[in-house]
């Protein structure tokens, strides 16, 4: 039912196509410029920096080089931070999914006229700065806080405390990135036609089966988007580990920050950044492959 445009009927098709593609390039220009200035150039700079060698005799000065050894050294020293980054981010993502899915489900299907308000409440914490919110968790999880006392009363804490443990870091990551999980989940769930669930019920699927066979698979794009949007920034985060963890809970982000700001070891910091980026990319691609939803994301 494609409408036939009168102009297309008059002008030779090739001219129209050419004009159209030229318009396309013009429209692409601002976006491409943005990408070049803020992504491609820094990306190349980062990579070049990661291969630099120290200028002999002048600490804190580096020169152009091809020192791939920077990567080996950085990874040899900081691999535990890498492992922690991925473990903490992974656990936080899983927790955010477990907390976020029912929440998004409720907002999408059950909230009625409170829907708008509930969505605002999900986003509301983001109006306060990330740093501030994380500081607040320092208080919430402090040694004498009600939360800590509660878990201690149940003898659930091996160290008798939460602050300055990996639990606090994971809790902070989960909390801070929860909206990034809930919003895509909500968007995916909200798009599901409730009549599909009725149709499943009509075809002998109990509510649980209907969820497993219909709702869950149809919400997969939201699950994939939500887990990625949570995992990627969580894996690169350093504020939660900095404020809520001990020195034993340092993540790659902290290592990069220390090398960059304190040691002024730019090649190591760059190598770590680049390695983190590569690791995340590989992980994300395998994950999307597994989820089998490349076309849905």
């Amino acid at each position, binding site marked *: 039912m494609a409408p036939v445009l009168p102009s297309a009927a008059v002008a030779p098709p090739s001219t129209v196509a050419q004009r159209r593609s030229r318009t396309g390039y013009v429209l692409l220009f601002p976006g491409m410029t943005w990408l070049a200035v803020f992504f491609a150039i820094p990306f190349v700079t980062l990579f070049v920096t990661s291969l630099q060698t120290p200028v002999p005799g002048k600490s804190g000065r580096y020169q152009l080089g091809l020192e791939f050894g920077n990567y080996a050294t950085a990874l040899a020293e900081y691999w535990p931070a890498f492992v922690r980054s991925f473990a903490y981010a992974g656990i936080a993502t899983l927790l955010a999914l477990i907390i976020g899915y029912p929440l998004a489900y409720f907002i999408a299907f059950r909230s009625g006229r409170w829907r708008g308000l509930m969505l605002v409440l999900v986003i509301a914490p983001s109006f306060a700065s990330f740093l501030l919110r994380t500081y607040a968790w320092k208080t919430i999880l402090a040694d004498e806080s009600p939360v800590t006392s509660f878990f201690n009363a149940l003898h659930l804490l091996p160290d008798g405390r939460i602050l300055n443990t990996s639990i606090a870091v994971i809790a902070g990551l989960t909390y801070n990135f929860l909206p990034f999980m809930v919003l895509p989940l909500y968007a995916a769930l909200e798009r599901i036609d409730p009549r599909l669930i009725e149709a499943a*019920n*009509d*075809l*002998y699927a109990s509510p649980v089966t209907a969820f497993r066979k219909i709702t869950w698979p149809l919400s997969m794009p939201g699950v994939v988007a939500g887990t990625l949007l949570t995992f990627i920034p969580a894996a690169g985060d350093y504020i939660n580990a900095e404020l809520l963890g001990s020195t034993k809970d340092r993540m790659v982000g902290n290592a990069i920050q220390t090398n960059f700001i304190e040691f002024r070891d730019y090649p190591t910091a760059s190598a770590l950044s680049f390695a983190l980026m590569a690791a995340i990319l590989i992980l994300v691609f395998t994950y999307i492959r597994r989820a089998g939803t490349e076309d849905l994301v």
Partner: protein
Amino acid sequence: MAELSKTDQVEDLHLVNLTKRFGEVAAVDDLTLTIPAGSFFALLGASGCGKTTTLRMVAGLEDPTSGSIRIGDKDVTRLRAFKRPVNTVFQSYALFPHLDIFENVAFGLRRRGVKNIKPIVEAMLELVELGHLARRKPTQLSGGQQQRVAVARALINKPDVLLLDEPLGALDLKLRRQMQIELKRIQTEVGTTFVHVTHDQEEAMTMADTIAVMNAGRIEQMGSPAEIYELPRTVFVANFLGQSNLIEGRVSGAGEMLDVAAHERSFRLPRERSSATGASIILGVRPEKMTVLDAPDAARVPEGHNVLSGRVTDVSYTGVSTQYLVQASWGQELVVFEQNLIVGDRCEVGDEVVVHWSPRHSFGLDGNEDIHAGVDSAVLALESVDSAPAAGDGE
């Protein structure tokens, strides 16, 4: 095809005093209805009269406010949807977009743990002529094909009752006619009770064995298409199903024939064709039952026919018939359809004419009813038929 042979045993579906309220609105109002086993039953009514709500209650997707639903002598009123031996073809099809056609059709069988489903699904896909599309996704199918998948997906479970909610509403006219025949064929082949909801009276008439005309949550009249058309029992039915000329009058006479006095004329009507209870009556006659004659030919009116005189105000030739608008002596406009049997010699606008019809084609309705009941609904129903293809997915 063995699996698709006639359903083992079918049972009547009984709705007893079924009521559903949404707040103040009674969407379905004290509905009592028996749908005979194995019949093709049409629930016909204008948009918003409660058809979908009725079906949803039978399917178990909506809880009745009161009343009960029985299949045979099993009360299913409180049975959850997924435990009812009833399947639905939804108004919008509601095919599962992430499953291919095969899996859509297999869905019900898998849920019930039926073994070796491949041949059953394949046979069902053959029945609806979609075998070659088994591995397509629903969005890759045309509207008519999706519609057949929806039918196959429901029918494969051999339900006691198959519910179809305006299944053809989203199709264009030609496809709709084709699918009407198709559905009728499938129903005859499997012998399942079909309850078909529609606002299209022509669709109901061509497909159903039995039609129930529904209005404002109630059943106005139920019967075979011919019964309902030939002998409407309410003004709503007379106006909604086809067209009727309705004349208000007063009834007298005690014999087999009633006399109706209207506008200083007298018309006759067999007693058994009248549902009027008091003295006031609405006399009805279908347009195609009437004959128009030039006034000078009045002598040719057969003995005993009802006659009135008037003037032709409009003539439209439609090929099969000529449709006249005749203004009766008292000012009311009547519609007359005449088959084009005569060559030439057609009446023209302005002609003085007499219109006559046999008393056996008259029907009597309760004079206390609103004489315009159902007219707007019929027009609305027609309009929504016309706009259906443009509207795409319908309601």
